[in-house]
């Protein structure tokens, strides 16, 4: 009984959250899975059971397999790696301390404050690929700077990797945040450790590689997880960028349009479930690993 009194209050305090999430997350997920196994199409729900038919249909759906899944894989790859690299570089640049660090940090961080819809509005113009007299946006800046050959068609290019262009506005939004994470991680390394390495005769780059870098692993994991899940869920940005352009279609977009434009609720639910499974394959290992790390400490 005494043990219950020890941890009972804690459980009680956290109980409302658990209950709320049980309903709003897991209950609704269950609803979603149930719908995905029905044939619901149109405004009136259908309560029949068709098993995995919708999932099988998706595997044969050209839009899903040929456009959506490769697109989201490419986008996630470019966005996550790009943000990590640039964020890391920015953190390294700022780590030693510069005058006006606060200003630089604020400039890099503030795009996160702007909603994805507003971001898309301006980046749509920036990535306009008109030619000749209609050149504008970044292409025009490049031309003015004498870098004509760098001109790009961005997400209108006929390349398979066209969607990677959208990683640019997405990265603009979130790289500042990644930088903050890395910077905090670097600054969190006790100076004594660095000093010890320096006293041993290591040059700055080696200090960094051997002392600081290993301590950044938890930060890296955290950044990867957050970036990846945002990337898989991103919807506003693509929606506002070029609506219904199949070249930049993603599962999240297909889910939205097929559900609310076409009324294919069962199919939409199946896509959502698959999307969640995709997220889970990355998250669950992370959570398991991270909890195991805690246990070891």
């Amino acid at each position, binding site marked *: 009984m005494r043990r219950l009194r020890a*941890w*009972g*209050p*804690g*459980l009680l*305090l*956290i109980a409302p*959250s*658990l209950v*709320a*999430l049980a309903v*709003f*997350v897991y209950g*609704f*997920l269950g*609803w*979603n899975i149930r719908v995905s196994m029905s044939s619901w199409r149109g405004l009136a729900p259908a309560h029949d059971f068709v098993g995995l038919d919708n999932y099988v249909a998706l595997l044969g759906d050209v839009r899903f397999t040929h456009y959506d899944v490769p697109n989201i894989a490419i986008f996630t790859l470019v966005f996550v790696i790009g943000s990590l690299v640039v964020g890391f570089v920015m953190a390294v640049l*700022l780590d030693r*301390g510069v005058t006006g660090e606060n200003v630089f940090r604020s*400039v*890099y961080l*503030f*795009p*996160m*404050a*702007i*909603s994805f819809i*507003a971001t898309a*509005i*301006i980046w749509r113009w*920036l990535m306009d690929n008109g030619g000749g007299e*209609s050149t*504008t946006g970044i292409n*025009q*800046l490049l031309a003015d700077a004498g870098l004509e050959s760098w001109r790009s068609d961005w997400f209108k290019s006929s390349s398979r990797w066209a969607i990677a262009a959208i990683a640019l506005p997405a990265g*603009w939004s979130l790289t*500042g945040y990644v930088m903050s994470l890395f910077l*905090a991680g670097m*600054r*969190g390394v006790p*100076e004594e450790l*660095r*000093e010890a390495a320096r*006293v041993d005769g290591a*040059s700055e780059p080696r200090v960094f590689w051997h002392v600081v870098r290993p301590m950044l692993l938890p*930060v890296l994991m*955290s950044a990867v997880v*957050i970036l990846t*899940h945002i990337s*898989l869920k991103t919807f506003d940005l693509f929606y506002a960028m070029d609506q219904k352009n199949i070249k930049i279609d993603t599962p999240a977009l297909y*889910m939205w349009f097929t559900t609310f434009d076409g009324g294919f609720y069962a199919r*939409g*639910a199946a896509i959502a*479930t698959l999307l*969640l499974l995709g997220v*889970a394959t990355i*998250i669950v290992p992370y*959570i398991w690993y*991270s*909890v195991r790390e805690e246990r070891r400490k």
Partner: protein
Amino acid sequence: MTAVPPARGHGRIRSPWANYVTTARYLALFALACFFLMPVYALLITALKSPSEVSVVRMWQWPHALSLDNFAIVWPKLREGFTNSVLMALPASVLSSLLGAANGFVLSKWRFPGADFAFALILFGMFIPYQAVLIPMFQVMSYSGLRGGLYGLILVHVIYGLPITTLIFRSYFAGISEELIEAAKVDGAGMLRTFVFVALPIAPPAFAVAMIWQFTSAWNDFLFGVLLTNKDRWPITVALNNIAGSQAVPFNEAMASALLACLPTLLVYVLLGRFFMRGLMAGALKG
């Protein structure tokens, strides 16, 4: 873990390249800053142009006549939504931060059997695509009478913000030493007292991280906002959408409203920015 950026030149082998490196660093930082500010510049000058001047082909051209008219035009359209968004985002972010603090404290410092599993369950809630839960959530809110005013919307933002705030605080509290808690227990404090009088007072940096994230997400949300409220309680994102989404988009107005709409989040960043870095350094959001 208080670390300050090392004073320059202290105890280090100063190589002859140092000056070049420093200049290169400033150049790189400056170039990056230009990249980050370039879209804002474009937003700004379009917002200052008159309707006839606005054109995607001439987007980089400085306006012939600077005019704040666009701001004057869009502000009345945004004002009601602005108030609603403030009334919604502030309580939502504060509430979900507080609840996250409670959860994080319990999960790190006052554990119960199965705490790790509970944490995993909570964390997984972060990864739900919102469109997937739109319909059942709407129905639940509708049937429980919470649809229409701001309460339902605040509740939804609080609930869906619980995973990230719990993560933030759990990581943060994991970094504070056990002795503080032990000392409180020795003094005879129960869980609630320990939470309120020991954990919360040292939590402001984590609050900064949580509030920045939650405020931004609540402020910029459109879907939940437009679905769960009646017209007189629509948040600012609906007004933004109406300006920027109609058949003939007045881009000058759209950009002006985008700028106005992001001011409160910027304000939150400015006010909490200092604490934000401290919170991150102290371990909020570290694995």
